[in-house]
């Protein structure tokens, strides 16, 4: 059931209930009042009659009273009010009626209840289908005076009032119900808006937002909804981006896997199906070997990348110079083949990171530089201490990279010159791996190059922001000032 209907069905009965209680109470009260008034009036009439009767009878002597008929005596002081039905009656102690102006008689038992102290009483009774109040008093002469007065008017009035009240309640109920229903519909309209928006959102319309300009709870709920929708949308876009990247990676990976496989399967198939000359067989075998190697490189690089991606790195202090010299040592043999000189020049300073990953990073960068370099050229690896970190630059004199290619070189499987990269045994994953390592260390890097002008890769490692590190940095700086800024060591790999 809708909330507005619930509100309606709860509020309206409560309203009607209160209205009924209150109305009934008022009406009952007014009835009682009128009744009391009528009784009072009847008493007064009775009392007046009694006084007049006693006065008249006292004024006359016994004989005079005997001579005078009681009717005449009463007529001298009492005249019946014609407008109202009722009666006045006098009877003696034995119950003999002495006087009555009217034959109307209402049965009552007041006489039995009268005592010495209480010589007047009343009762309400029925006669001739009317309601009457009967007042009976004992006069000082020992006889009884009975006054009867119709109070049907009061009851009729009451009935009329009650009927009017019922009609009023009905009308009011309908009116109030309508108003309550309208109001609750109005109040829950925003809620419906919100629920509609939620449904739309759930059905995939992620741009849906709720516009509710009220400051109540629903308004706040709408704000919360919008906030949640924004957050969800952001998250979803991020997830979609991730999925997209993952798909691209998978597609590129499948391509990279299938290309060497095609050669391996194809050449092997050729060898086993055909009788080939020695040269042809050698050529096929060579292709199979080299493409197999390519697959091996691919799988190693991929493994490294997965490892780098999963690792929770433990960052330790590493002496920058030591690290770079080790890189030079490891890369030495490959560089010697092409007679490339490697110069390492590093200022005193610390790196905070994982030694193996950083080795891998700089070995990759130096290896890239080697691949891009001509025979007999040079590669420079420079380390500089910065006020908030340590900066390492790997620069070569190689063929460089066009500006439009620079943005894409960190993509997995992206190769600027595919055929050359293949010859050098590249899988197109080196810089993608480096990117991961750089990210893991919260470092930043940039590439500067012009075609034919060589490539300069600069990696900036930030010192961890911890007060405890400060003295170390200060000490380093002092040491640096003492030694002079150019104090670095030169090292040739060749």
């Amino acid at each position, binding site marked *: 059931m809708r909330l507005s209907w619930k509100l309606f069905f709860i509020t309206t009965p409560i309203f009607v209930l209160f209205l009924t209680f209150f109305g009934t109470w008022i009406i009952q009260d007014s009835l009682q009042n009128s009744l009391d008034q009528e009784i009072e009036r009847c008493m007064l009439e009775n009392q007046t009659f009694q006084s007049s009767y006693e006065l008249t009878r006292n004024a006359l002597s016994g004989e005079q009273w005997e001579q005078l008929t009681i009717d005449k005596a009463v007529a001298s002081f009492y005249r019946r009010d014609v407008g109202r039905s009722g009666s006045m009656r006098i009877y003696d102690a034995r119950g003999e009626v002495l006087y009555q102006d009217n034959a109307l008689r209402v049965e009552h038992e007041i006489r039995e209840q009268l005592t010495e102290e209480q010589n007047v009483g009343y009762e309400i009774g029925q006669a001739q289908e009317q309601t009457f109040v009967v007042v009976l008093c004992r006069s000082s002469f020992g006889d009884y005076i009975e006054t009867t007065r119709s109070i049907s008017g009061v009851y009729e009035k009451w009935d009329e009032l009650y009927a009017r009240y019922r009609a009023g309640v009905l009308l009011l109920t309908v009116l109030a119900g309508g108003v309550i229903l309208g109001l609750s519909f109005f109040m829950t309209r925003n809620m419906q808006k919100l629920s509609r928006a939620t449904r739309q959102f759930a059905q995939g319309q992620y741009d849906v937002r709720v516009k509710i300009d009220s400051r109540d709870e629903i308004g706040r709920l709408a704000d919360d909804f919008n906030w949640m929708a924004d957050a969800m949308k952001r998250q979803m876009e991020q997830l979609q981006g991730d999925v997209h990247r993952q798909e691209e990676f998978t*597609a590129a990976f*499948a*391509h990279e896997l*299938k*290309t*060497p*496989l*095609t*050669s*391996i*399967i*194809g*050449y092997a*198939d*050729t060898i*086993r*199906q*055909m*009788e080939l000359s020695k040269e*042809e067989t050698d*050529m096929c075998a060579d*292709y199979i070997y*080299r*493409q197999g190697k390519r697959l091996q490189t691919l799988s190693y690089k991929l493994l490294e990348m997965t490892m780098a991606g999963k690792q929770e790195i433990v960052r330790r202090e590493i002496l920058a110079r030591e690290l770079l010299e080790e890189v030079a040592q490891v890369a030495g043999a490959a560089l010697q083949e092409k007679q490339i000189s490697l110069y390492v020049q590093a200022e005193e300073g610390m790196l905070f990171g994982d030694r193996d990953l950083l080795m891998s990073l700089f070995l990759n960068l130096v290896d890239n530089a080697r691949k891009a370099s001509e025979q007999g050229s040079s590669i420079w690896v420079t380390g500089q201490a910065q006020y908030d970190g340590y900066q390492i630059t790997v620069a070569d004199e190689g063929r460089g990279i066009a500006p439009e290619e620079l943005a894409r070189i960190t993509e997995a499987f992206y190769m600027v010159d*595919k*055929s050359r990269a*293949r010859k050098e045994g590249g899988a197109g994953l080196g810089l993608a791996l480096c990117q991961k390592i750089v990210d893991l260390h919260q470092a930043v890097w940039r590439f500067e190059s012009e075609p034919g002008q060589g490539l300069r890769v600069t990696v900036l490692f930030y010192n961890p922001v911890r007060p405890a590190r400060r003295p170390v940095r200060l000490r380093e700086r002092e040491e640096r000032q003492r030694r002079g800024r150019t104090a670095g060591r030169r090292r040739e790999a060749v």
Partner: protein
Amino acid sequence: MIKILIVEDEEPIANLIRMNLGKAGYQCEIAADGEAAADAIAERPFDLILLDIMLPKLNGYEVLEYAKTVDVPVIFLTAMGDTQQKVKGLKLGAEDYIAKPFEIAELLARVETVLRRYRKTERQLRLFDIEIDTDSRTVTQKGHQVDLTTKEYELLLLFLRNKNRALYRETIYENVWGGEYNGTGRTVDLHVQRLKKKLGLEEHIVAIYKVGYRLEC
């Protein structure tokens, strides 16, 4: 002689195709990127183009559109398992596609099929005293028609296309019957025996131990 243009930027794959098509009697030329391919198509007539999709400079689809203007049938090579790519290539007017990695027999079969569709191959094939008419699918020997079943006929064509080449039982099965070869059935042997008997090729189709058969001529 039938001339085929191989457009493939991976040198090992390009050489592999050239080597095998060359041995099958086709004349091949290699273009290593899209622009070189377009130049070659513009300058020289080709009977068929084998086209890689992922190419430097111009991609395969662009080369395909260009090739359509000179009415050369195109078979494209793709490393992507993506159905959409295949559909896109076929919609653009390629005759067929070959998914990498492929087997040599499959490559030859598809090349042959497309060439036959374009009537680039000879309709009359000859093997010793056997004449084969690929239009009417009839085989005659010394003027007498020989009745061959469909499978036997396709088997004969397969041997003809792969002269002096060892055909593995699985290769034969996959090309003639289609589907995966389970390695145990005698279907292939049975049909080869019947074909040999019907055409008197007992001396020319030789069994190779543990491998399959080879047509020697």
